[in-house]
Structure formats: C-alpha cells, structure tokens
C-alpha cells in the first residue's frame, strides 16, 4: 500500500523546509524510525524518520529544493505499488478547515489508496482552476489560493504557471535584476499593471562602489535567512529600550565556587555563571510577571511558566533553545538541562519542542570583552537580558575605593508592553539578587 512521506511542520512559523540530504535511494528498504532524509527549517536541521516500513518508491525533490510544509516528499510502499509521477498536492493548512473537512479528507485518502492519479482532488479549488491545471498538466502543488480558506482560483493557477512570483517584468529589467542578484518580487513596479521596468531595478540597486573587487557572496538562506528575517522583523516592529546596570559579582562568584564541586559530583557538569544568572532571573521574574509576558496581536499575555530562552551561537547563525520552568529547577538540574540543550544546539540536534515556549531570553556574551550591549527582543517575548563579562573594576564602597568583580546587565524591553519604571524595578531587583545570591535559597 502506498504511503506518503510528508514534509513535517515543525513549528508554527515553518512554511518550507530545505532538503539537505537523502539517506535513502529509490528502491531502498526503509524501516520504521529510520531516517529517510534531512531537512533544514528556519530554526533547525532535522532528520525525518519513517513511520512506515517498505520500499522507498519515489522521491519528488532534490537536495537544496525548498519543500512546502505538508507536501509529499516521497512514497513508501510494496514493490508492487506504483507511485504517481507527480506528488500529491498540499492539504489545507488551516486546522479548522482540516477538521471541518475531515470526511472529505478520508475520501481523498481512500482515493489515494486506490491509486487514483488525480492528485489535485484534495485541494480546495474552483472547477475552472481544476480545468486549467488539467489542461496544463500541472498540479496545485505550491499554488497559493486567493479565495476563501485558500481556495485556488483560475487566476492563481494561471499566475503560478506563467510566473511563480506573479510579477510582470520587462525582459531588460529581468536581465539586470538577474545579473545584480535583485529579487524581482521585492521591486516595486511602476510600469503598466505594476510591471517592473529597468528604472525600478536601478532605483532598487545598492549604490555600488567604484572598486569591483572579487568578494565572497553568501546567499541568505536556511538558518542565516531565518535569523536575518527574524532580526529585521523584531528590530523594526518592536520599540526597544535598553537599560544597563553594574552588578557586583563578588558573592555570586563565591556561590559558584561553593557549588561547583557539589554540582559537578552530582551531574558531572560544571555550573557556570549562566545558570546562576538564569536562576536569579527566574526568581526575579516571578516577582515581576509583567516582564515575563508575550505580546501577541493586541494582547499582553502574562505567562504563568517561566521558560528561559538561551541564545546559542552556532555556525553562521543563532538558535535559542528553551529551558522550561527554570523557577522550579534546582541549580543542579538547571545546569544539566542547559548544558545538554546548549550541546544539542551546537550539534544541530535540537527538536522543535526544545525550541518552543520561551517567555524571556538571556544572551550571554560574557566570554568576550563585552560589557553592555543592546540585545534584540525575541518576539513574542517582551524582554531580553544581555549579559556582559565579569571584570575587576575600581568601585567606591562605603566611601573608599575598592576592587570588585563587576558585570554589566543590559535589559532590552518592548515599550509597548512594559514601561521604563517597572522594567527598571525588575533590573534593580535582579542586580540585588545577584549581589546577594543567598536569597535564592530562601
């Protein structure tokens, strides 16, 4: 019996996955749980495992292809099964629509089982769109419907056939854009019916320097593209304010020294300042729930659980695993969890669940000669804490100059959700908590 292998939807924002590697060739036998291929999403690289056993009959995509979520990537079946030449189209993404259409979907599933080749059956589309698709011998795969609930209209499929980006462009403008690596889809066309003309491309051009030396060009794709898009989105849409404060780390250092052997013998991990700061942050967030909020649409959601995102630098990118319920974890467990997640992040082994649900993020650059900085908030969170190095500085204590280990904390907050005074109160209390970490025991 034919079984589809779908492109999994690994996060709410995931729309496409890029195929990185095939582990199986057509004709190979596949067992349940065996990885078939590896994909990269906007957040993670992941191996997609088989839910079925059988023979990999058909692969529809090549390495580097971008595959829409829920698209059929391959078929697994018996050696007598015949897989269709073109993959079946995407199911309705809308979950409510999917529930409402459950009986229809079942029928469609049966149709597939009966090896019907009309792969467009399951998609919402007008009869005219189906006719056009049939006449052009194409499927609705990847076609965005403009009608209600994503129903595909005749024009949608015509646009998809004529030009993927649905944009008119003159031949000359297309040539210049291709040559200069300009994405036509992002150019505003001023010609008739919005046609992109030469001048539009020239207006879109980056001012070029006279020197045309050979430079390395890295295309924004995969994780880099995901980071770029997210940063731009967050930086542009959130009114950031960053507060900084100096923290005297004398007692935190003492605390870590005292706990180091204890935790190491228990977990074999060495507790770091990151965990101590996480613990202090979680404890302070509990007193300041407004800082542990998410801003979604027109609502500020005060999160009950305190899940801390931990920004981890990976090769040419940044990912943020989430440590859940930090306020409920002891330092030993917290150390274990955060070290394991950090390692997984660096080796691209995080599962989507491990990256979901953070309510506040910590970005630690303390290993570099950095004091304060202005971290960018990880939406929909409303605040992020930037951690600098611990460095010995001359400070005035009780009227005399003494040397103390000082660390700068930088708190960026979303001014739509939090005002300056409560944010300052949170940061002040966090500073006090780190300066008197014994309070964490209370």
């Amino acid at each position, binding site marked *: 019996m034919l079984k589809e292998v779908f492109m999994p939807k690994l996060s709410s924002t995931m729309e496409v996955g890029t195929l990185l590697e095939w582990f199986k060739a057509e004709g190979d036998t596949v067992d349940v749980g065996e990885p078939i291929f590896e994909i990269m999403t906007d957040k993670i690289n992941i191996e997609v495992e088989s839910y079925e056993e059988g023979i990999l009959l058909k692969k529809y995509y090549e390495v580097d292809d971008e595959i829409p979520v829920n698209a059929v990537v391959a078929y697994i079946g018996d050696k007598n099964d015949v897989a269709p030449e073109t993959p079946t189209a995407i199911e309705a993404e809308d979950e409510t629509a999917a529930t409402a259409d459950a009986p229809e979907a079942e029928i469609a599933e049966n149709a597939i089982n009966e090896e019907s080749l009309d792969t467009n059956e399951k998609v919402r589309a007008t009869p005219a769109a189906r006719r056009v698709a049939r006449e052009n011998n194409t499927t609705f795969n990847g076609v965005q419907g403009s009608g209600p609930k994503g129903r595909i209209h005749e024009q949608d499929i015509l646009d998809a056939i004529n030009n993927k980006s649905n944009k008119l462009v*003159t031949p000359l403008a297309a*040539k*210049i854009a291709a040559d200069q690596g300009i994405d036509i889809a992002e150019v505003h066309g001023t010609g008739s019916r919005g046609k992109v003309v*030469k001048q539009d491309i020239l207006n879109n051009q980056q001012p070029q320097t006279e020197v045309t030396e050979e430079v390395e060009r890295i295309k924004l794709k995969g994780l880099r593209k995901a980071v770029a898009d997210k940063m731009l989105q967050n930086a542009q849409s959130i009114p950031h304010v960053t507060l900084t404060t100096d923290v005297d780390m004398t007692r935190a250092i003492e605390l870590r020294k005292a706990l180091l052997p204890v935790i190491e013998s228990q977990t074999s991990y060495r507790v770091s300042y990151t965990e101590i700061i996480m613990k202090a942050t979680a404890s302070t967030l509990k007193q300041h729930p407004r800082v542990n909020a998410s801003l979604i649409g027109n609502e500020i959601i005060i999160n009950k659980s305190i899940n801390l995102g931990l920004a981890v630098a990976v090769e040419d990118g940044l990912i943020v695993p989430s440590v859940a319920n930090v306020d409920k974890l002891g330092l030993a467990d917290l150390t274990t969890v955060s070290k394991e997640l950090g390692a997984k992040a660096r080796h691209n082994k995080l599962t989507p669940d491990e990256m979901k649900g953070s309510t506040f993020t910590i970005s630690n650059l303390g290993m570099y000669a950095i004091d304060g900085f202005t971290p960018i908030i990880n939406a929909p969170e409303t605040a992020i804490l930037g951690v600098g190095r611990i460095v010995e500085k001359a400070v005035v204590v009780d009227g005399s100059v003494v040397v103390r280990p000082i660390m700068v904390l930088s708190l960026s907050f979303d001014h739509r959700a939090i005002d300056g005074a409560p944010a300052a109160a949170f940061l002040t209390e966090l500073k006090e908590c780190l300066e008197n970490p014994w309070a964490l025991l209370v």
Partner: protein
Amino acid sequence: MKTFDLAIIGGGPGGYVAAIRAAKEGLSVALIEGRDLGGTCLNRGCVPSKTLLKHAEVIEQIKDAKTFGITVNDFSYSIENMIKRKNKVINTLKSGIKGLIKQSKITMIEGYGIVSKDKTVTVTTGNEEEKIQAENIILANGSKPFVPPFPGLEEGSYHTSDTIFDIEEVPSHMVIVGGGVIGLEIACIFNSFGTTVEIVEMADRIIPNEDVDATKFLTKQLTKKGISIRTGTKITGFKNENGKAIVEMEMNNEKISLETDSILVAVGRTPNLTGIEDLPVKFDGKFVKVNKDLESSLSGIYAIGDLIGGYQLAHAASEEGIKAVKHIVGKEDKSDMLIPRCVYTFPEIASVGITEVEAKKAGYKVKVKKVDLAANGKAIASNENSGFVKIIAEEKYGEILGVVMVGPHVTEMISSGTAFMHLEGTVEELENMVFPHPTVSEALTEAAAAWMGKGIHYS
C-alpha cells in the same frame, strides 16, 4: 464671462489632441484657434508635404517603369491638380478633426487668444471680443518658419514652407536654403517634378542631428538623383538681376553665386508668440520654459509642442499635450516617452532612441550592428534595395538604445524598433521574434541576430 476647466491656445496636433483627451477626462474645454484647425502639421507641414511626396513617388515610378519591363510612352502632370488633391486631403482630415471636436463637446473659439496671468483669454474675432476664464491653460501656439535677415532677401520674392505647398507653377530651378528635414523633403518633391534643385547648408552635413551613416547615405542618394548639396556654405546675400534672383554664398572663403528662379528658405522654425507677448512667462532662449510636467513658470499655465522646443514634431506635441492634461487631472506620468523621428525623403530615414555618439557620451558600452538592404529579398524585388538597418545597443544586457533605418518604407517600420525599446525588450528578444519573409522589415531581426553573432544572412 464663460468659465472652463481648461483653455487651449492653438488647434494643432498638440492642442487639439490635448483638448480631446481633456474632454475625455471630464474637463470642460475651450479650444482657441486663430487660423486653421490642424495647425502647421495638417495645413502647411507634414500632411501637404507627404501628399506631394506621394505625387513625386508616382512620377518616380513612372520614370522607373522601364526597369520593370513597362513602357510608358508619354506622361504629364498638372501642378494645379496636384495642389487641388493636396487640399482635398487636408480638408478630409480637417473635417475629421472638426467632427471629433464637436463629438467631444469642446467649445471651439475662432480667433487669436490673448492670454493673461489671471488665466483669462481674450479672443478677438472681427469686431467682437470674447473673454473667457479658465482654471488651466495649455499654450500650444506652435511655430512659424524662421527667416534670417539675409541682405537683399526681402527685396525679392521667396518661399517658406508656409507658401511652397500652394505653388502655382513648377520652377525650373530652385535654391533651398537649409539642409534640414523640411528642405530635403521639398527638394525631393521638386526634383521629381523636374526642377533643378540646389541645397545650401551651413553645417558640415545635412540633418546634422541625425545619425552620421544615415545622412551620408542620404547625401549620396540625393546627389545621384541630381540634387546638388553644398554643405559648409554660408549665404551672404540675395540680388535681383534681369528678373532672375541671384543667391550669393561663401564656402571656404570662396564666393559662389547661383542664378535661380525660386528660393525656399527652410533654415528652421521659431516659436509663435502671438497672444502671449505680454504674458510674464519665463523663457529658455526663444522657447517657453517648462518643468517636467510641462507647466510654465506660471502655475496652471502649461506649454507644449514647438513653443517649448525639443523635437519639433507633431507626435511629440501630441504626447506633450496628453502629458500636460494628465498632470492637470492629477494623474502621475513619469514616463519619458521615446519620440521616433522620420524623414520622408527618397530614401526615407527613420530613427528612434539615441545615436551611437550620444550613447557613448552617456557612458554606455555600445555595440552597433548595421545590415544593408542590398541583399533584402523584398527590397530587391521592388527595386528599392538601397538602405540599411542599424541597431545601437548596450553590450552587457543588450538594451536597445537606438535604431536607425534608411530605405523604402522605413517610416512605417521604425515602430517595431520603438515597441521593443518601449517595452524594454532586448536584442535577444528581437532576435527571437519571427518576422515574416520576404519583407523589408525582417532586416531588423537580421540586425539583431548579427549583433548577437548569430546572423544567418549577415555576420
């Protein structure tokens, strides 16, 4: 006082086209014309010259008939009947325009309009004076032949393009002062009529703004027909001796004088400022100064056509008229239209875009390809295979910067080049397109193929 959304001074190809477009846009329009609807183009320019050129072409064909194995024993023509036919053509077109004006509910006011700063226009017809008030004004006054103050010219008689198309007798000899488009077209007409034509041009070549290859080619062809062309020659004066006119000139310090029985002064045209003499509008040289939206220094007063200089062509004026109307009704039009240029000599010249020299000056890396019509099947069959098609394109993307055509029917063919440029097709698309065979126009795709190094008949 009657009020209008728009008053247009001048019913030539700039003014009447603007009037109809404005009416279509829902404006109330007054069109003021003091002389003939259709302006210079219809009455004293493009249309009469093209009509007489057609007459000349028929004569040429009769003369050529022997080449085709046809013997025409004797033929004659009547200049009177020719002028009559020309007037019939004009009247047909003029009543067409009148109909359109009426249909568009445009108020036609006959008489010269005097424009004031407050956007009132005073029109005097005979003893009656009519004053109208307009929200906007388009000055489409046009131009008139420019006659330099040559010594002795006014003492004798001479023609300009205003009078030559109503000539009653075909002269046996004609001196044409000015080797521009007007002078050359008229030279071709009279050359066919049997007149000995001598052209005197001050610049070092005829039609100095046009493509060098084209003007060289035309010079050769005209000379072959028996038209004498003296370039680099300056007129010094006119005299009358024994009822014959003497034209005195100087070339390389050498004095020459020609005896003739008719003179045509065709050195250029000058803006017609009738009715705006007292309007405090800013000028750029002798032309009314306008901005990109064709608005003059006075807000709400626009100027188009020959009055503002640029290409002094009917279709340029029409385009400007439409652009001005678009601005009045608030429709943005940033486009910089390509204006094709046509010379209806034998052979014709048609061009669009910029010349090779201009392209290089503008910093383009230019690649030029020229293919000759000598081997073009349709042209050979018609015994009119002298000419060429030239593509001036930017090297990297194949952007077509200019097209120059010389030969038969090229004024009808240039628009395929213009279309490619207007729609930003490149040499590649031009090479890709299928042209019918046999046609003269297929030379254009041949030129594109040759440009790309893929030429079939040309390399």
